[in-house]
């Protein structure tokens, strides 16, 4: 064995280097975890999560005009929209909406296809549920947005 590797071994150089790494890791800046329900992670701007239907804040009516583009764009065909035309304003409004979250892969094609920007995938991520039935969202649920299930005694 040549001299240098031998000296490295005898004086435990590599082990001490490794200990230096773990020692530096102790600083607060290095930390990557947080106390989840109380401290929340910063979500990236382009993250696609829980879908939401927007409502006109002034009149309270849905922005959706039932053009069916989202349903056509959806590769999983999980969106079903039915609507009727308002005889006065000649504008279509949704009667029934279903969005099956259990099949959604959050590709965001529906939100991209939406002609009025009514449908969007928000940054909310707490979508876990106790049953599959709750995953099929209707219009009201889509407009309410995220409602995480809370543990209760």
């Amino acid at each position, binding site marked *: 064995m040549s001299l240098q590797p031998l000296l490295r071994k005898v004086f435990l150089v590599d*082990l001490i280097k*490794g*200990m230096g*790494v*773990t*020692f530096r*890791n*102790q600083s607060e800046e*290095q*930390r*990557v*975890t*947080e*106390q989840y329900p*109380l*401290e929340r992670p910063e979500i990236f701007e382009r993250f696609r999560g829980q879908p939401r239907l927007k409502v006109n804040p002034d009149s309270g009516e849905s922005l959706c005009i039932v053009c069916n583009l989202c349903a056509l764009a959806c590769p999983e065909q999980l969106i079903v929209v039915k609507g009727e035309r308002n005889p006065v304003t000649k504008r279509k409004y949704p009667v029934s909406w279903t969005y099956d979250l259990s099949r959604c892969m959050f590709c965001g094609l529906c939100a991209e296809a939406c002609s009025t920007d009514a449908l969007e995938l928000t940054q909310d991520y707490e979508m876990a549920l106790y049953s599959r039935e709750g995953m099929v969202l209707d219009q009201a649920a889509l407009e309410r947005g995220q409602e995480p299930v809370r543990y209760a005694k």
Partner: protein
Amino acid sequence: MLDAIKSYLGSNVTPGEAGSVLWATIYVLLITIGVSLAVIAMNWLERKILAHMQIRLGPMRVGPHGLLQPFADALKLLIKEDVIPEGADKIVFWIAPVFVMMTAFTVFIVVPFGRTSAVTDMNIGILFMLGVSSLGVLGVIMGGWASNSHYPLMGALRSGAQMVSYEIAMGLAIISAVLMTSLASGTGTLSMIGIVQAQADQHRWFIFEMFPLGLMAFVVFAIAMVAETNRAPFDLPEAESELVAGFMTEYSGFRWSLFFLAEYAAMLAVSSIAVTLWLGGWLRPFPNWLSGPAWDLAFSFVPGLTFLGLAAMCFLGTVRMPKIPQFKIQTVGLGAFGALLALVGLLLLVPGVRERSQDVFWFVAKVACFMYLYIWYRGTFPRYRFDQLMRVGWKVLLPVSLGILIVTAIVGVRQELWAALTGVAR
């Protein structure tokens, strides 16, 4: 009553030397409580420091910064179902954890926390410590054998082989330090208090004695003691990925917690051997460089100031707590803990207490460094393979420690040897 306490405290001897059964009992109780508290603190510190080394937070929920986590765990262990496997040797299964814990706690009789803060000054102190602590292996093997299961048996076998083989290197390293006690006075000693006093008389800790020799013996001991206590990176007997939990696999609840307690008590015990033999026991640092009554006084303030510093860190923590209503109780709790630490710090600054508690503080501080090292090793090093472990023990540490012993002996008697040689030549 008060006079009796005062006259004893003024007498400057250990209870064993004074022949006082009452004080010995008090000391034993104090040490038992102290070691148990240290194990609890160690449990929390290990989780926190290990978590920080792995860039995690560690326990945060039970109490401020998880301070009450060990108590929650202890409660959980106590109310857990106590399972004894079918076909187990019941009596041996019962005795094993008690045996391990008794041996781990008995050695603290001779540990010198200070000149007067030891239960007794046994004249074969270090021998007693080694002898009793190595009985712990027997308990481990008993537990592994009595479980009537594969993993515990394998773990116990590994543990037996490992502890026995590292004990040799450890013993040889200790002998070289014991040899050094005879350097100034001409007569060596095996008494733990005597060893520290020899270091005080020689004005040098044995780690710096005969320069690389003391250090080398210390390093050999520091490696062997990690293996001896079955800690990472030598934790093969309880390798999680291979043996579930080694000899503790079939144990649950209270019995398991006894094993846990014993493991940490053993870590404390071997660390105190290392501190006593090489790091000057209860002596304060820099006795030569910063000597004189002024420095003595300055160093006597260090224990109190350390606690006040810890309290200040706690108060800083309360300020830095997230300002969320859910954290309010934790913030208050952390503040209370800081206040408790500050109170202890102020108590340690009181003149009478200051002189009395100093040596205990320095001893505990040195042991605490070793405890941190244990956690640091665990956070850094991957586990050895069994053949590597045996190779390190028998082919590296044993020859090195034997060499150190021989060289130490020769250097120690160099003048007599030289005189004899020149006398023969004449």
